């Protein structure tokens, strides 16, 4: 009986059941960001694994097939990016400028804050890609020497925070332009921010999807080159 929990079947079943429960609840609460499936689904998994004596490392091995699909999911981001190219033709210049500055800001602020508060190199490196979509972030974090699980968790929390405060920030700053709301949410809060942007309008959603793709691309292309320059400067010796 006890050996039944030590198979991929168990890990996958637990994950899918928790996730399905979480998406059902998310629909019930009308996509309230605090009830994001990621947060809700983690509760049964965190409770059950220690109860049945399965370690986190073993659980991660059991569910490897899901993590493997992050690769194809990254390649798949080319599709929405391609579909949305036409929506930005008239504003491509401010969009590109914002992508470069915004991607640098999002990564730079988290790197600086974590470093300033005394986090070691591997932790700072895990936070650098926190504003980009998860499948790209878990690839990029390998080049910054961070922890995959910390990066993935930070990405999820970043998305949830962005979606939670987005409405308030836009109201305080007097922003009514859906292009701005969408692009800002997609840039800072990736897929979770994009889902939030679609609640403003389809146009906001399209701009968010574009921001998600561009920011992920720019960060993934730049960070592996820049990190070896930043890291020795922040962490000499």
């Amino acid at each position, binding site marked *: 009986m006890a050996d039944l929990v030590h198979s991929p079947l168990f*890990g996958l079943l637990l994950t899918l059941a928790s996730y399905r429960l979480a998406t059902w609840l998310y629909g019930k609460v009308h996509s309230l960001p605090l009830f994001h499936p990621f947060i809700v*689904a983690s509760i049964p*998994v965190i409770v059950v694994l220690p109860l049945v004596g399965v370690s*986190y490392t073993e*659980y*991660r091995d059991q*569910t490897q097939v*899901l*993590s493997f699909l*992050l690769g*194809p*999911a*990254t*390649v*798949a981001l*080319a*599709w929405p*990016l391609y579909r*949305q190219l*036409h*929506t*930005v033709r*008239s504003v491509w210049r*401010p969009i590109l400028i*914002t992508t470069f500055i915004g991607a640098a800001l*999002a990564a730079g*602020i*988290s790197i600086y*804050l*974590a470093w300033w508060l*005394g*986090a070691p190199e591997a*932790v700072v490196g895990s936070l650098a890609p*926190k*504003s980009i*979509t*998860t499948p790209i972030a878990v*690839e*990029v974090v390998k080049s910054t020497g961070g*922890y995959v*699980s910390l990066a*993935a*968790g930070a990405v*999820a929390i970043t998305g949830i925070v*962005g979606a939670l*405060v*987005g409405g308030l*920030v836009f109201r305080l700053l007097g922003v009514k332009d859906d292009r*701005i709301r969408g*692009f800002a949410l997609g840039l800072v*809060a990736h*897929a979770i921010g994009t889902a939030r942007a*679609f609640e403003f309008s389809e*146009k906001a*959603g*399209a701009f968010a999807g574009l921001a998600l793709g561009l920011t992920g*691309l720019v960060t*993934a*292309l730049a960070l592996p*080159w820049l990190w070896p320059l930043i890291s020795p400067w922040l962490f000499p010796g």
Partner: protein
Amino acid sequence: MIDGLLILLLFQFLGELVIHFTGLPLPAPVVGMVLLLLALMFSVPYSDRVADASGALIRHISLLIFPLGVGIVLQWERYSDYALALTVAVIFGTILALVLVTLLLKLLLRDRVKAGERGGRADG
């Protein structure tokens, strides 16, 4: 669906090949994404068949990332020493970045409200 998966895996593999032969310090799936984007832009035959598989994978990114992300809690003893740095960087850092990016967009798009009105059609 099979066509789409085949295309995605093929482009990921092409990404691996590029990395293997050039030694670029980039994630192979990202290179694959750029190659697929180029293929789509140049209307390479059949490349638009990625639509279904792409949509399905992207919709469930939360599920794919879940086993890795939940490690932030299950391996918390590894990170708990840096709880303050993590909380401030992730929560305050995200809010600050969102404010700054919004202000930047306001500044850059201010004079373009009319010029940019066209073409806001979105796909779910």
